[in-house]
């Protein structure tokens, strides 16, 4: 064990040093690695390219003998496939024919009609050729490859290809080798074209097969400017007889001499064809590759928490691929030529080598503390994983070694490759990937400049990390700035698959791109297949304008560089034969007269008038210009496969045929002259071509524009929601605001810092805001008004009520006048008492003693509110019934007690903490003075509902009580303040509607104005001089059977939810009950209604109902929580609910389908707020979290205090200026959402 420990220690230290090295010198190391990759891959250049292309081998013709089956001796460079007889010998007779001299009386059809007609003579000659010598008489019939039957399924070729007998292919096959059919064919060109496939064709077409030369070299077209027709007669022989072929060659040459044609005829080319991969064999291969890509995808998807995910994924793939290449290269270097099919074993090699190490490295590095220096992070990450990496590599090597001893050659070779691949992969991981990772991490560090800490140079090398299995990520690092999410399954699954697919499609615009790519390919195919004949024009044009002249039979030859040399330097190799000076004596069946030299030759004025038949190098092996599938497809028509076999191609027999114009005219079909002259005069041809080009370009442009427009419309139609904007938050999310995850990586702390509003001595009970002002009420009954912008405390309204001192047990009363006059003692008795008065109403300062000595608070001011209240109190003693709530009637306090003073407010506070219970079961004992249970703020009026059932209206700025209503006796559990109406829900289930009326003051009457004094409300806004009255307009006694728990008002509706499982909707104006909504099976706990009349309710049964407020019908009814629904918020597209089960669910508002859910920590998530359409804020334990609603990702967590001691955020308000207010124990916290996040909407 100690040895093992030592080993681990050593390995870890070595990896640490290596990590330091890599991170310190990234660029040199990457250069070094690239150089070594290239070096190792260099031997690959010598390997033949994979593919199914044929392989050639050339032998001399003279001493040719059929190779033996068994390899005997060393034949030097003889390839191993060159054994046994070939499938066939191919003898091509290459015919070049021209009508010469060209006469202006000739029509274009003449260019190829009579030359093609010559093929029948030649065919007859070849067929009838007989060679007789001592060994007997041989004819073509005995030598040629006898075919029996066409491949079934080629019936349409039946009329063209020979069905049985000798395989002899020539253009004459178009006319069944019958001269009469040809002569009677009115349009031979059409006959040829008739057999052409319509669409895209890449392999050999019938025309190629029959002509034996590529289409563009054949010269059979109406626009043949060369006026030379080239075709071949292909004879397929099954056995080789040199003497017969020699005599045939001599005979043909004698008949049609190609004077000065010096094509080499002493070489025989053997062409070996590889196995063609069919669809059936391709399917498993493709499947393997698909699995491979899935593997790579799923692996690289796990790379996270880095600057550039794609970059690292690319680096990982590059690492694996180049290690494979290196392994092949190294094996080649040491003489191990791969015999395995590389394409087949490649996926398995990748799977064996794997991407795991790379991912483990990445995870390990990103999980190191972010505040370390980059190279230290790299080094630590490396050394943490060193042991597992080494162990895994050793295991894999062992497995491969076992595989090596299976002694199966294929497996041994595979294992060998795998071993080399593994080692080189390890090398690349250590040098290449680590360095790339360090660069990436460094970039990320630079991105977070605010996060920079001084480099801890003196960091001791970390102890080797604990042994971890590869799958287990490092532990989350406890940090005050992180919150931990639940298991990754929750995070990954927050969006349904279909939405992910849609998002993916929309984000990458996949459909559009595919369509565009398809269009490009389509256009390419169009250009390729050339339906309009543009390419023919162009080819003709180019060949005519070519400065190199016309070396070929109608087009550009492949040997462009060679041709001029031969033309200029060696006139014997290529020679134009139009001046054949001394014609050889011709046999009797030479049907054409050789023309007159003086007439044909020197006509320099009109060069095209004399077609020049030239023989060049390229004619020697004209079959090379054919598709390499030419021969396999020809043989496959007769069900003969060439796979893994070879054919021998004999040297061509060149034949030159000259025809006189007279012969051409004689050969004409009667209809030929009636064909219109091809309307392309020479001069306008260029113009025509240009015009066509322009037309095509213009059409293409128009089509492109149209396509773009179409795609745009499609995009608009298909993606009506602006998915495209999701890219912004997505990118944002990726770059900066990374959520903390299981790996303990925490995003850097941002600039969001909450503003703490301190002042309340006890926990905050109610919170209300109207955007500008913020009112809060604590358990002590004190109301404070804050400026929502700056967080300044504007007003303090102390509790005027009675407090019972727990120590003395007697009733104390805090009287304003007393506290004014006896300020000193109250100050010393309760130093922490909140007597920071607002100085707004200093107009009447002179009436009262100066208050500056009263308070130690910096914003000391004069409490007008207190004065007003006290004046009011004196003039209007409260009725005893106001304090007697029905449930606490037994111990109602004596009314006179309120005139007592409180000697010790500070210690009186603690025992008075009462849990506000909406159920109202154990609410305040009667001896406890009424506390504020509900509060609302509108304009600058604070409506406070007290447990005593009293409704008070306070001036928020001045802190003065404007009016009060004590009509109700049951405690007000909820308040709604809308326009000039106040709705109060009471504990006994009744609902009271109040009207706030404002009238202009008359003198000083405001101090003694009785409540309920009616006058006309002038306007919703009122000044401090206005007299405000609050009148009970209607009281619905039994609105609910049980206590009302929730009350919301918006859009002229008041919605109440109660313990009795029902929701009621009232109209605000006439307080008439519109609907009673039933559907919940538990008490209503949350209601949401907004200006758009959407109504959502959540109950204790965990159900959420969406209602139509206009009809009272239930729109949808969903279950998502296993406890109470604690909070509900809607945006225009979704509904967000939180429950007692600490789950936040996001539902689609229109369909009621749950989009995703967020599992939160225990004990938080009761409060919700929506800042914008895509930004959700939730309260947690001592923190608030911002979530991206589109993706369900945590954007940021803001901690309210340094100590996260479990003070949950229970209430949370979103203000208009994108700030949020939440309670935090006895403090209020004002969090400004940073500008970064504001851009989201």
């Amino acid at each position, binding site marked *: 064990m100690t040895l093992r420990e030592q080993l681990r220690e050593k390995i870890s230290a070595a990896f640490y040093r290596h990590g330091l090295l890599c991170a310190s010198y990234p660029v040199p190391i990457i250069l070094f690695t690239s150089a070594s990759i290239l070096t190792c891959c260099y031997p690959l250049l010598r390997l033949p390219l994979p593919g199914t292309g044929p392989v050639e081998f050339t032998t001399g013709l003279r001493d040719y003998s059929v190779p033996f089956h068994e390899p005997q001796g060393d034949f030097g460079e003889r390839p191993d496939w060159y054994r046994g007889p070939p499938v066939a010998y191919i003898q091509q007779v290459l015919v070049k024919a021209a009508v010469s001299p060209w006469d202006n009386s000739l029509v274009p059809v003449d260019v190829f009609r009579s030359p093609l007609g010559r093929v029948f003579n030649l065919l007859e000659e070849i067929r009838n050729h007989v060679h007789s010598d001592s060994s007997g008489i041989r004819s073509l019939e005995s030598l040629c490859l006898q075919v029996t039957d066409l491949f079934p399924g080629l019936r349409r070729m039946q009329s063209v290809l020979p069905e049985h007998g000798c395989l002899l292919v020539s253009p004459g096959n178009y006319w069944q080798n019958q001269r009469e059919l040809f002569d009677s064919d009115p349009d031979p060109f059409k006959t040829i074209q008739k057999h052409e496939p319509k669409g895209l064709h890449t392999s050999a077409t019938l025309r190629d097969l029959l002509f034996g030369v590529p289409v563009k070299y054949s010269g059979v077209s109406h626009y043949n400017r060369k006026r030379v027709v080239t075709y071949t007669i292909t004879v397929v022989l099954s056995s080789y007889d040199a003497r017969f072929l020699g005599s045939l060659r001599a005979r043909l040459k004698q008949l049609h001499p190609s004077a000065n044609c010096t094509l080499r005829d002493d070489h025989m080319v053997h062409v070996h064809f590889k196995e063609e991969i069919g669809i059936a064999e391709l399917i*498993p291969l493709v*499947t393997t590759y698909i699995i491979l890509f899935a*593997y790579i995808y799923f*692996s690289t998807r796990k790379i996270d928490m880095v600057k550039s995910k794609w970059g690292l994924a690319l680096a990982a793939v590059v690492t694996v691929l180049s290690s494979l290449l290196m392994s092949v290269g190294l094996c080649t270097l040491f003489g191990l030529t791969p015999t395995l099919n590389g394409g087949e074993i490649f996926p398995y090699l990748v*799977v064996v080598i794997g991407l795991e190490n790379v991912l483990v490295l990445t995870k390990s590095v990103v999980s190191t503390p972010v505040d370390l220096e980059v190279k230290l992070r790299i080094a630590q990450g490396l050394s943490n994983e060193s042991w597992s990496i080494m162990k895994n590599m050793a295991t894999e090597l062992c497995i491969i070694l076992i595989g090596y001893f299976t002694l199966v050659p*294929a*497996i041994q070779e595979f294992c060998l490759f795998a071993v080399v691949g593994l080692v080189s992969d390890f090398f690349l991981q250590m040098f290449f990937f680590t360095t790339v990772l360090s660069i990436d991490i460094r970039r990320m560090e630079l991105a977070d400049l605010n996060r920079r800490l001084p480099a801890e140079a003196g960091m001791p090398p970390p102890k080797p990390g604990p042994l971890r299995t590869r799958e287990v990520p490092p532990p989350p690092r406890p940090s005050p700035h992180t919150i931990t999410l639940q*298991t990754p399954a929750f995070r990954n699954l927050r969006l349904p698959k279909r939405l992910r697919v849609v998002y993916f499609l929309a984000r990458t615009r996949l459909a559009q791109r595919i369509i565009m790519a398809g269009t490009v390919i389509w256009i390419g195919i169009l250009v390729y297949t050339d339906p309009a004949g543009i390419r023919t024009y162009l080819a003709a044009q180019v060949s005519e304008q070519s400065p190199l002249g016309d070396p070929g039979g109608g087009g550009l030859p492949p040997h462009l560089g060679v041709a001029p040399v031969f033309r200029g330097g060696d006139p014997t190799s290529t020679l134009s034969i139009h001046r054949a000076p001394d014609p050889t004596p011709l046999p009797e069946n030479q049907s054409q007269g050789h023309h007159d030299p003086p007439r044909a030759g020197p006509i320099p004025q009109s060069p095209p008038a004399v077609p020049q038949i030239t023989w060049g190098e390229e004619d020697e092996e004209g079959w090379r210009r054919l598709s390499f599938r030419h021969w396999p497809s020809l043989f496959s028509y007769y069900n003969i496969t060439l796979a893994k076999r070879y054919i021998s191609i004999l040297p061509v027999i060149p034949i030159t045929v000259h025809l006189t114009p007279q012969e051409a005219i004689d050969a004409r079909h009667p209809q030929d002259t009636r064909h219109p002259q091809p309307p392309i005069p020479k001069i306008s041809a260029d113009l025509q071509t240009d015009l066509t080009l322009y037309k095509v370009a213009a059409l293409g442009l128009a089509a492109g524009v149209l396509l773009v427009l179409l795609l745009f419309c499609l995009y608009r139609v298909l993606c009506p929601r602006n998915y495209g904007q999701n890219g912004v938050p997505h990118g944002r999310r990726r770059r900066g605001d990374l959520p903390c995850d299981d790996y303990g990586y925490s995003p850097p702390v941002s600039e969001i810092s909450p503003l703490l509003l301190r002042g309340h001595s006890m926990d905050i009970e109610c919170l209300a805001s109207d955007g500008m002002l913020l009112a809060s009420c604590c358990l002590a009954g004190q109301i404070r008004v804050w400026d929502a912008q700056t967080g300044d405390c504007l007003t303090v309204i102390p509790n005027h009520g009675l407090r019972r001192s727990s120590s003395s047990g007697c009733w104390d009363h805090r009287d304003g006048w007393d506290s004014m006059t006896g300020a000193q003692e109250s100050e010393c008795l309760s130093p922490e008492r909140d007597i920071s008065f607002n100085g707004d109403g200093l107009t009447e300062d002179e009436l009262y003693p100066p208050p500056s000595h009263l308070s130690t608070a910096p914003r000391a001011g004069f409490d007008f509110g207190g004065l007003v209240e006290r004046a009011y109190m004196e003039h209007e003693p409260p009725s005893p019934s106001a304090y007697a709530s029905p449930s606490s009637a037994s111990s109602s306090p004596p009314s006179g007690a309120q005139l007592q003073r409180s000697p010790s407010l500070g210690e009186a506070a603690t025992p008075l903490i009462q849990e506000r219970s909406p159920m109202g079961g154990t609410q305040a004992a009667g001896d406890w003075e009424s506390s504020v249970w509900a509060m609302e703020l509108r304009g600058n009026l604070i409506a406070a509902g007290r447990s005593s059932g009293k409704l008070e209206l306070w001036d928020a700025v001045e802190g003065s009580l404007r009016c009060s209503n004590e009509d109700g006796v049951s405690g007000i559990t909820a308040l709604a303040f809308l326009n000039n109406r106040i709705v109060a829900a009471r504990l006994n289930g009744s609902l009271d509607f109040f009207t706030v009326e404002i009238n202009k003051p008359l003198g000083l009457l405001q101090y003694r104005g009785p409540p309920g004094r009616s006058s006309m409300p002038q306007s919703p806004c009122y000044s401090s001089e206005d007299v405000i009255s609050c009148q009970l307009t209607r009281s619905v006694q039994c609105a609910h059977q049980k206590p009302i728990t929730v009350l919301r008002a918006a859009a002229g509706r008041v919605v109440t939810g109660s313990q009795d499982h029902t929701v009621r909707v009232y109209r605000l104006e006439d307080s008439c009950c519109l609907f009673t909504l039933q559907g919940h099976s538990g008490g209503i706990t949350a209601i949401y209604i907004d200006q758009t009349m959407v109504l959502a309710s959540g109950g204790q049964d965990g159900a959420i109902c969406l209602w139509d407020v206009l009809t009272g019908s239930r729109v949808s009814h969903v279950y998502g929580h296993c406890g109470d629904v604690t909070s509900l918020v809607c945006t225009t597209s979704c509904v967000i609910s939180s429950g007692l089960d600490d789950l936040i669910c996001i539902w689609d508002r229109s369909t009621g389908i749950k989009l995703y859910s967020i599992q939160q920590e225990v004990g938080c998530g009761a409060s919700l707020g929506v800042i914008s359409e895509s930004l959700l804020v939730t309260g947690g334990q001592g923190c608030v979290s911002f979530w991206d609603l589109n993706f369900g990702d945590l954007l940021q967590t803001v901690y309210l205090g340094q100590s996260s001691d479990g003070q949950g955020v229970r209430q949370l308000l979103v203000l208009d200026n994108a700030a949020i207010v939440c309670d935090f124990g006895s403090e209020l916290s004002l969090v400004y959402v940073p500008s970064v996040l504001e851009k989201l909407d």
Partner: protein
Amino acid sequence: MSLTLTAMSGRAVTGDQQQWSRSGEMQHSRGPYISVITNRTTNLLIRGAMLFSVGVFLALVLNLLQVQRNITLFPPDVITSIFSSAWWVPLCCGTAAAMIGLLYPCIDSRLGEPHKFKREWSSVMRCVAVFVGINHASAKVDFANNVQLSLTLAALSIGLWWTFDRSRSGFGLGICIAFLGTLVTQLLVYNGVFQYTSPDFLYIRSWLPCIFFAGVITMGNIGRQLALRCKPSAFSQ
């Protein structure tokens, strides 16, 4: 470290179970859509369908490999069809795959030992790739004799289990199903439904049990992963 993770996942699992029991109670009162989504039967059906399609696909592809090498012979008229094997082969394989893939997580939960080894899709993909590789080797690599081939494949299959599964229940189930599958194949060949070109183990090829075993391990892996993915999704949806 791993302990915390275990605890976390354990908590998630127990939470799941509670959730399940709860949702079972609430089934009657839920809306139609939600109940469809969270319905255990539907969930099972979806998983079964996915496994079935995977099995059919793999059967087609792997059979193609065998047919190419003329290892299995089907009646000639069937070969000309596009699937190149009898219609019942993919169906049987798909059904077996679905059953195995559902059986594995079920047994895991019965035994109360949730499978936690390498629970990620990349590992599953690796497993599938190795399985295809084993098939490839059995079809395309020329071995000296059949014993060697069978031993190599057996070693590869055990290696597959060790690399991707490592659970005793998986091993046992694999052995059982491989045995059953071999038996069934023997019977099929005995009754002349199809035949092998060169049988060396009664009527079949001796490597067939290894292939069966590897296939069972692979499908079990996929099934477990699907169950893992489906459960939280049903929970959260």
